[in-house]
């Protein structure tokens, strides 16, 4: 294609260059100069003719002065020399130098010779004119004054002179000289005859010379040489013209070639144009279709972009090497990097290296399975983001790309955790309810046979008391005998204890069942009443007075004055306090350890609190969160049922209160209970306490266990 464009241009340019050269050469060179030369040659001819005319006029005595003659001669010479200089001046014009210089030089030589003769002619002619005049005058004077003989002699002389002037016959010269010599001896007219003699002799001397000069001048070859020069000029012009003609012919031929070439190119161009027009039509149709396709593509592309940009997910594409090639706004929001900062950086930067030391591998592996994986990302500020990443790979040409759609799942995770905990709680509650139902049923079923055992064991003890006397008698009588496989003596000693054990066991079953019933049966508050926490505390202490005295030597109470009242069941409140106190007292390894009980008001939380602090053995941290679970006990051997704190917590909850433990093993435990204080405006209203307490509850429903350092 390229060669097709520069080649014709080069050819045309070359042809044009050639044409220009030929055109310059085909002009008759220096046409004006040639014309001038011709004119100068013609002028030379005219001047030469003029010179001849003036010479002849002068000879005839008709030229009054020599100004014009001198001028013509000098002009002739000047023109010829100028022409000679011009012929030789153009060193490029060899033709002129070779053909024109030589004839001009010849002409100049001839003209120089001719002018020398003209000068001599002028001098001699002037002299001759005077001499003829003086000869004439002197002759006339002499003839008028001389005697007859002399006059005749002078007349003869005059005749001879006249004849000589007309004919230039050399024979007359001798005659004239003789006559002139004879004039010498006429002394009277010495002056006149002297004049006649000298001028006559001068005439005879000058005339042939003048005649010779005139003939030489007339016979000068200058006219012929001017003709030769003119012919040379003609020939020169023809030669130059012939050369120019040849160039003109070449010019014409080259022009024809140029036109032909241009026509050929034109035809080619036309063919191409037609072809191009068709191709253009085709292309236009194609491009129309492509344009529409492009438009729809662009539209869908824009839609896709808008979708990508509007997505809350981070949509990131990487190339083979793991460098980011596409980045959306969601990604900027998620990771804190602007688009420009993110592009062409490795994707690994966005993932927590701590959690995924082998990220690229994960990525690569995941990208083939098109799976959704959970990864941990890193925000620009360093915080970690739990991510759900869906990976897909695609390729464009040979390049392979991976697109990751990342969703921030921290909120979801949190919700899931909450849901799981609530579910656990629900399960626990269900478990408790089922347990309650089970326990109620079991308690009832156990209670009846247990009552029989308890009642019959009393009867059995009575029976043994009665039978022992009889058997003692029998033993005395019958000697040693066995009773129930054992020697009677042994049996007599252990049997009361056995019966007592039965009775104790049954009593224990009865108490456990009662506890179970208490725990399982939904506790309905009695008629809710407003009461003072301090009163409940004092009542509970009276009940436990004996136990306190037995367990510790240091028991302190610090009851706050002017405590706000609380609403609820006072007996249940007492039970709570009793349970807590009993737990505290039983945790004491020896009586030297103290227990303190205090009440206080928390004005800011609008609640009233109770604190029981002991210096007991403490609770292991791992046990703290299970304290309120039913049947959780560390005193299985001492007969703990694990229901005390569960019931206590249940009661506290029923009152809308809150319970917290803190403990340090070996140093002691601190238990706190908060009850919501009774508000004056609510007094008298018949509202169920739990609902009320829930509404007023200033504390979270499930506060994390608070740990108070033991003091």
């Amino acid at each position: 294609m390229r060669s097709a464009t520069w080649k014709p241009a080069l050819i045309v340019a070359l042809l044009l260059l050639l044409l220009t050269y030929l055109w310059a050469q085909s002009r008759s060179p220096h046409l004006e100069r040639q014309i001038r030369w011709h004119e100068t040659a013609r002028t030379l001819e005219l001047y030469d003719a003029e010179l001849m005319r003036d010479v002849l006029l002068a000879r005839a005595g008709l030229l009054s002065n020599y100004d014009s003659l001198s001028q013509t001669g000098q002009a002739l010479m000047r023109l010829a020399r100028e022409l000679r200089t011009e012929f030789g001046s153009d060193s490029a014009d060899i033709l002129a130098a070779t053909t024109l210089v030589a004839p001009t030089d010849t002409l100049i030589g001839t003209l120089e010779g001719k002018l020398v003769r003209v000068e001599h002619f002028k001098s001699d002619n002037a002299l001759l004119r005077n001499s003829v005049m003086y000869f004439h005058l002197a002759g006339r004077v002499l003839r008028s004054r001389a005697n007859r003989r002399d006059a005749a002699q002078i007349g003869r002389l005059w005749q001879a002179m006249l004849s000589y002037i007309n004919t230039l016959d050399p024979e007359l010269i001798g005659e004239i000289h003789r006559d002139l010599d004879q004039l010498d001896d006429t002394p009277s007219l010495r002056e006149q005859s002297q004049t006649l003699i000298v001028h006559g002799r001068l005439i005879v001397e000058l005339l042939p010379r003048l005649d010779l000069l005139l003939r030489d001048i007339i016979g000068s070859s200058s006219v012929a040489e001017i003709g030769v020069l003119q012919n040379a000029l003609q020939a020169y012009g023809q030669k130059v013209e012939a050369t120019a003609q040849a160039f003109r012919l070449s010019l014409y031929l080259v022009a024809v070639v140029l036109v032909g070439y241009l026509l050929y190119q034109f035809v080619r161009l036309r063919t191409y144009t037609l072809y191009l027009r068709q191709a253009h039509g085709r292309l236009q149709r194609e491009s129309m279709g492509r344009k529409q396709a492009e438009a729809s593509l662009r539209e869908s592309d824009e839609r896709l972009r808008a979708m990508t940009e509007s997505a809350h997910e981070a949509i990131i594409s990487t190339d083979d090497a793991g460098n980011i090639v596409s980045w959306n706004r969601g990604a900027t929001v998620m990771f804190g990097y602007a688009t420009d900062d993110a592009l062409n950086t490795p994707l690994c930067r966005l993932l927590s290296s701590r959690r995924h030391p082998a990220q690229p591998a994960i990525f690569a592996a995941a990208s083939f399975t098109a799976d959704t994986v959970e990864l941990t990302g890193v925000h620009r500020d360093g915080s970690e983001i739990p991510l759900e990443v869906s990976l897909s790979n695609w390729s464009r040409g040979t390049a392979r790309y991976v697109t990751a759609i990342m969703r921030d799942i921290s909120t979801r995770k949190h919700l899931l955790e909450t849901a799981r905990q609530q579910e656990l709680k629900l399960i626990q509650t269900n478990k408790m309810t089922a347990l309650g139902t089970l326990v109620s049923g079991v308690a009832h079923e156990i209670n009846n046979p247990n009552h029989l055992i308890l009642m019959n064991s009393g009867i059995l003890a009575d029976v043994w008391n009665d039978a022992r006397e009889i058997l003692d008698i029998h033993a005395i009588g019958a000697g040693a005998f066995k009773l129930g496989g054992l020697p009677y003596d042994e049996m007599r000693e252990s049997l009361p204890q056995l019966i007592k054990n039965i009775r104790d066991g049954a009593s224990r079953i009865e108490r456990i069942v009662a506890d179970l019933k208490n725990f399982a049966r939904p506790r309905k508050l009695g008629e809710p009443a407003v009461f003072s926490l301090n009163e409940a505390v004092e009542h509970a202490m009276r009940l436990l007075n004996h136990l306190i005295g037995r367990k510790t030597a240091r028991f302190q109470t610090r009851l706050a004055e002017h405590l706000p009242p609380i609403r609820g069941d006072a007996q249940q409140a007492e039970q709570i306090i009793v349970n807590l106190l009993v737990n505290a007292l039983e945790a004491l390894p020896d009586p030297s350890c103290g227990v303190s009980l205090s009440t206080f008001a928390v004005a800011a939380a609008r609640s009233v609190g109770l604190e029981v602090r002991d210096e007991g053995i403490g609770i292991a941290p791992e046990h703290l969160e299970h304290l309120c679970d039913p049947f959780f006990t560390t005193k299985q051997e001492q007969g703990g049922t694990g229901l005390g704190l569960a019931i206590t917590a249940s009661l506290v909850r029923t009152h809308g209160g809150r319970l917290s433990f803190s403990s340090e093993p070996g140093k002691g435990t601190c238990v706190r209970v908060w009850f919501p204080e009774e508000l004056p405006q609510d007094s008298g209203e018949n509202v169920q306490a739990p609902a009320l307490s829930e509404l007023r509850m200033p504390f979270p429903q499930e506060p994390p266990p608070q740990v108070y350092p033991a003091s």
Partner: protein
Amino acid sequence: MVALVGLGLASSLASTSGQAAAQGLTAPLAPLPVAVEENTEKVALGEKLFLDPRLSHQGRNACVSCHPLDRGAMDGKIRGESAYGSAPLRNTPSLFNVAFNYFYNWDGGATTLEYQTEKALLNPKIMNMKWPELLAFLGAEPEYSRAFSDAYPDGLNRNNVLNALASFERSLVTPNARFDRYLRGEKHALDASEEHGYRLFTVMGCVACHQGINLGGNLFQRFGIFGSSKPDHEDVDAGRYEITRDEGDRGVFRVPSLRNVAVTAPFFHDGRAATLEQAVDIMAQRQLGRVLSPADRDAMVRFLNTLTGEYRGLPEGGERPRVR
């Protein structure tokens, strides 16, 4: 003549004198034109050069030194004084009306004023100048180089120096001689004796050589057709033979112009005639083979006195020391 004027190829010199030449066809003598056309800028530059003594090698002699314009444009000496006192020169010719001469100097060695001027400039006996020296001097003078640049497209060079000088020389015309006024029809410009002298001048054949607009200056003639009885020093000069080496030119000299002849004594190439009377006598005797009567000679002298013209509006000549 028709061809000359019609072709229009002749130089300015030819055309200025063409009119005079045309008049010459009808009469042997013709008056000088009242004014000549020359480029004033070139003339002014030429005059400056003409007056400048630095144009001579010795720095003393200007052109004007030998051609004082208030005294007939010649030095009034029998022979021109060589700058170095060596070989004697001929009598200094007047520069007035040189435009109408066809040959220059006594031997006609130059046919153009430019060439004649160059000869004078380079002649070791006269200005003794060399071209490089002269051009260097002129080029170093801001006034000259500026004047040349103004007057000539190609500025200062050899041809333009000569042309400027020649232009000025061509402007040295002395019109309005009483004889010219007489020729122009002012019949009372000559008194009776002068008119008689004019008639004698014509009749006796003086006019055969002293003809044309300049009464001479356009042909050569042998000095002494009618030989002197005593071959004195006067005839030693070979004249035009020095130029042409043609035996026919031995003792031949240019016929000088008679214009301003009354103020350009002494006369002849060797200054042998101190007065016009002597000169007229010598001419009559040597050229015409006659002895003039005192009356005729006086009339002739009186006529010759009417040939003195004006230069720049003032009558030429005035008092000048007579060389006896």
